């Protein structure tokens, strides 16, 4: 059962041919963007390729490159063709922006619809989308995909637990899109606080994403709710959710290879690894018009699963993401780098450069705590002045990382010193 049988069931040879054709187009198109035009010139590259293997000649694109091209340096079409923008946090300073044409939005919806269909979502389903809408891609990405498929979409967004449960019950929601941590919390509220038996819910399927989680977490959630839980992978630079999606077999995520050219590399050397070896996932958009991205280093560690999936889809499967090659962490589905936080602290003269990030979970929701030391010269004994520093820091951080942190001011010398290998990020979440 496929949403696009001819595309999902495509023979390996035909898939290769599609990739080759699309890659050639993508390279040609990318050459029209200011960023890639300059890059190609610098390396003396012609925006042309003959075979898939020619991609190896092109350098990788990193998050930093996206940041450098802020805001529109990678846009490859006339700007009036752009209909949507999404953003993700950058390692420092500016966030990275991704632009989509009408066709791109349509394609993204199709890829999500393929995934939803693969896990059993149908036109008859009631789909409650409990992910953040806005700059973050989790909300709108699945929203459009579920609509494409024809399901009824409830754009509930995240949080507002009581309302979520009410809608869930009254509209007989059958499918939800949610972070695993929030799903745990909902289960707790429904059973312990609302005292509603879970059997009263019509839920069948939960799509979970935006947070790294383990196979054990999936099984636990399935047992609590008596449902099937499926994993979905994506990143805003590659549209967002729907780059890869599990199918009914729950054994790896089918990466839509007619839309993304995937390589696994050794993150230290950049060397492309043979199939089946674990490494960093590198993706090239194959059909995106607005902002083609060539060999994007996702920093996510995974590997291709060898062999065909019993579901029949020819698109290869990647394993559940195992980790990161950098120090990025994810809070409430938002990517954050310690360097972003460091950057903000540098701008606030009242605090010292030592800091510690503690990530915890409270009632199923992530909490980001930033501990900073008050600088000696700035203490005048006024509590209101300390509070003002705290507020200033909270707001500045929020502007930068898109998540509201809890800022704790601590005594000088109580945090590990900034020299040496200090443990700056403490993740207390258990998933």
């Amino acid at each position, binding site marked *: 059962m496929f949403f696009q049988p001819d595309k999902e069931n495509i023979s390996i040879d035909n898939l290769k041919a599609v990739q080759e054709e699309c890659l050639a187009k993508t390279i040609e198109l990318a050459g029209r963007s200011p960023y890639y035009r300059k890059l190609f010139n610098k390396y003396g590259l012609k925006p042309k390729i003959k075979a898939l293997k020619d991609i190896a000649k092109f350098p990788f694109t990193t998050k930093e490159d996206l940041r450098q091209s802020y805001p529109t340096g990678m846009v490859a079409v006339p700007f009036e063709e752009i209909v949507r923008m999404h953003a993700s946090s950058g390692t420092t300073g500016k966030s990275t922006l991704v632009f989509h044409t009408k066709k791109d939005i349509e394609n993204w919806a199709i890829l999500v619809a393929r995934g939803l269909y693969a896990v059993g979502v149908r036109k008859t389903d009631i789909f409650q989308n409990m992910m953040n809408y806005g700059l973050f891609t989790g909300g709108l990405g699945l929203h459009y995909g579920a609509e494409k498929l024809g399901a009824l979409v409830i754009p509930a967004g995240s949080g507002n637990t009581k309302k979520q449960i009410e809608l869930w019950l009254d509209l007989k929601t059958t499918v939800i899109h949610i972070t695993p941590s929030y799903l745990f919390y909902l289960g707790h509220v429904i059973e312990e606080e609302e005292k509603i038996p879970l059997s009263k819910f019509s839920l069948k399927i939960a799509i979970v994403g935006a947070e790294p989680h383990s196979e054990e977490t999936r099984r636990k959630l399935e047992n609590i709710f008596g449902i099937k839980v499926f994993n979905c992978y994506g990143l805003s630079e590659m549209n967002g959710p729907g780059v890869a999606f599990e199918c009914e077999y729950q054994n790896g995520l089918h990466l839509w290879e007619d839309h993304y050219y995937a390589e696994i590399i050794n993150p230290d050397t950049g060397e492309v690894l043979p199939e089946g070896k674990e490494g960093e996932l590198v993706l090239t958009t194959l059909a995106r018009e607005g902002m083609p991205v060539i060999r994007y280093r996702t920093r996510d560690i995974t590997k291709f699963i060898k062999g065909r999936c019993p579901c029949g889809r020819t698109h290869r499967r990647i394993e559940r993401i195992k980790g990161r090659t950098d120090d990025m962490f994810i809070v409430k589905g938002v990517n954050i780098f310690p360097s972003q936080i460091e950057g903000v602290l540098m701008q606030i003269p009242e605090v010292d450069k030592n800091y510690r990030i503690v990530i915890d979970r409270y009632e199923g929701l992530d909490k980001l705590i930033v501990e900073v030391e*008050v600088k*000696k010269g700035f*203490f*005048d*004994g*006024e*509590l209101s002045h*300390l*509070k003002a520093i*705290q507020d200033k820091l909270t707001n500045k951080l929020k502007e930068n990382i898109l998540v509201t942190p809890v800022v*704790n*001011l*601590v*005594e*000088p*010398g*109580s945090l590990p010193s900034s020299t040496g290998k200090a443990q700056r990020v403490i993740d207390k979440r258990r998933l």
Partner: protein
Amino acid sequence: MGKQLSIFVENKPGKINKITGILEKEKINLKAMTIADSGTFGIVKIITDNNRKAFDVLKKSNFLVSFQDVVVVEIQDKVGSFHRVAKILEEKGINIEDAYGFIIEEGGKAALILKVPETERVEKILKKRGYKLIENF
């Protein structure tokens, strides 16, 4: 002018103990203490018989500590004493940001510590009304 010491502390068990321990060790007599907190941190305000020394030893122990101007006024340890002072300040439209105190002798003298925006002005006003100001300890 009166002085108090403000010490930045995290809101954690054992913090006050550390401060009082240092004062005891240095034979500094703690006259009064009050705490203002804001969630995970707060400020401990103290008056001692040797504020200068207290400042130095706390600083040496890595505390964030700062002197603040306060009005330390002598009042009687009886009903209505504070009220009379408060009334004078109200008449002059002066806001009291913080106030605490301690008894010097039971049924006799007490010290009232006031944190106000214009310390000198308040001192003048109170002096004019016949109050005795305690310069420091």
